[in-house]
């Protein structure tokens, strides 16, 4: 059953002069990993922004559990239903890794007995121990920051995880580890993981690869 559905989605910049996405239709299921690939400037990040509710389509719909996301409160949608791992990570530098995760839980009103323990557990799940959890994020490596960003999305247990170039700044070892985290989330935690990427390695490890080219999204025969 699809958790995420894109119907006749169109998007353009400059008041319709610059069409980026043209009549896109696709469905995404829980427990699967998806990669959206394409050259730079083809609209991958725009598509992710639309799916994450940060931007609105010019026409067409994006359905989450068969509900048009434009009908869902945008704050609730972003803080509870989907988790976004941004390309620039978007962590708060004055907070520690643990505090970043805790803040996200606070915003999402996550109800757990011990928030700190839960946050530490999420960080541990992505491979960050307590010592690193208590460091300010600026004192962590790029790979570690990437893991904090993933742990932040996991903290409130969303159905869908959207990741924009999650391994863009990582070395091969870290890239492999991060991809494995995403695969585990889909397979073990039944998440729908959608990754926007240039990386060939990720393309090889996911269940489905969609190619965004000439404003259209097509499935690769991977």
């Amino acid at each position: 059953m699809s958790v995420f559905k894109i119907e006749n989605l169109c998007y353009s910049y400059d008041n319709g002069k610059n069409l980026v996405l043209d009549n896109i239709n696709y469905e995404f299921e829980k427990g699967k990993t998806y990669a959206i690939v394409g050259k730079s400037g083809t609209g991958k990040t725009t598509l992710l922004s639309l799916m994450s509710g940060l931007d609105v389509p010019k026409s067409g719909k994006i359905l989450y559990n068969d509900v048009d996301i434009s009908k869902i409160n945008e704050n609730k949608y972003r803080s509870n239903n989907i988790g976004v791992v941004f390309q620039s990570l978007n962590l708060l530098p004055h907070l520690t890794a643990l505090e970043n995760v805790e803040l996200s839980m606070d915003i999402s009103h996550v109800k757990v007995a011990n928030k700190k323990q839960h946050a530490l557990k999420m960080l541990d799940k992505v491979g960050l121990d307590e010592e690193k959890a208590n460091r300010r994020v600026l004192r962590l490596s790029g790979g570690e920051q990437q893991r904090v960003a993933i742990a932040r999305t996991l903290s409130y247990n969303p159905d869908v995880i959207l990741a924009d170039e999650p391994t863009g700044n990582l070395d091969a070892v870290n890239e492999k580890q991060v991809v494995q985290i995403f695969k585990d989330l889909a397979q073990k935690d039944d998440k729908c993981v959608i990754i926007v990427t240039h990386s060939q390695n990720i393309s090889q490890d996911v269940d489905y690869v969609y190619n965004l080219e000439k404003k259209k999204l097509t499935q690769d025969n991977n």
Partner: protein
Amino acid sequence: MYIIKNAFKSITRSKTRNVLIGIIITVIAITCCIALSIKNSANEVEKSYLDSYKVTAQLSLDRGALRNDAKGGSTEKPADFDPKAFMSNVQNITPEDVMKYGVSDYVSSYLLSIQTNMDSTDLTKVTDTVATTDNKQIPGRVTSIMEGSSGDFRIIGYNSLDAMTQFISSTYKITDGEIFDIDSSNSCVISIELAEENSLKVGSTFKLNNPNNEAESYTFTVTGIYEDTSESGEFSMFSNSANQILTTYNTLNNIVTKSNEVEDSKLNIQTNATFNLVSADVVDAFTSELKVKGLSDYYTVSTNLESFNQSIAPLKNLSSFATTFLIIVLLIGGSILVILNMLNIRERKYEIGVLRAIGMKKRMVLSQFVIELLMVTSISIILGSTIGSVASVPVANYMLQSEISSQESAQTQVNENFGKGPGTNGGNQVRNNMMSIFGNNSNVDYIDKINAVVDIKIILELAGIGIILTIISSSISMIFISRYTPLKILSNRA
């Protein structure tokens, strides 16, 4: 709750920015605290001083209006102008008028005195060459203009001891015996000079005669002998206290009433009245009431509020300065805070974008920023009011002293312009008397101390200022946060 926690973390981890904002707000709080305490204390002192101040009103002839009417509005007197006929149309104020005016909701009490001149076969009047108690010759002692040929002795009757202002101001002082009982008849006090001239003692009696009817005589008993301690009492072209006989109003009024029974023996009297008003606020209402009760338009109502205003002038100036200073500090401080907050928001644009992108509501983001500012403001105001409360009293009194010095130096300049020396008692006595008569008294009793303490009212006012400053400076955040979308902020950064 997490917003407060997050705001606190943000403050503690961005120390430089918040310390800078804190210092500015502390300075604003200190100055506001001092200015408010000065303003409030000055207002309270003024109010309590006014409440305790005995506001008095007196009736005086408006000579300017008289002159103007006498000329019929032209600059020259009419050829057929008869001053006596004209003045006869101007009704004198009688004791009955005063009593009528005194029955008023605006008057707490009134002081009445009447005076007339009488002769005496028993007494010799004090002349200009008489010796004083230490046998010193007083040059230039003259008899009062009032005396003239209608009687050598001026007899004054008072309805209350309070009306005897010379005794209250210590100008006159009983040296032997005591003042008469106000309800007694034919008791009197006389000057030491008159007593010595006529070998009168306490308990002595003497007779006074109606100058218009020598057969009409009245016997007085001396209950006390007074000394005129003023220099003006020794020499004045307007008065000679030595030949004054002071008695009760009823005593003199009985004499006048009796003399009026026979047309030719009628005594001319001069009436003086001082009305003690219930408060300074009723002066205008009392004046209107007097006109309704028939007071001639040629009379004006004058009060002692000028003296009150002089006393509180430095205080009022200080209060006004404090208010102006408060407004300037708030305007400048508020502007600085707005600018700092604009810079703060620019610096934290990314943070706003992240918080919005991970689902924090706009109003929650805004609340966090307002709470941060409120926390810094609260701490700064507590600090500022503590410092301000310590500094307000000495600063207020220092500023008040400066203001008084400034007023005094202005007064000294006026005195010098009149040819008087810097000392109020120096210089020519005649000029001093003139200054006193024209109401230009250089001995102003300034309020020279205020207790500018910081009380709960000021703390609440400061808190109000803090909230207003927070709202004004947060308005920038409000506009920014409501106008920008997280995508715009984050894509701009990217």
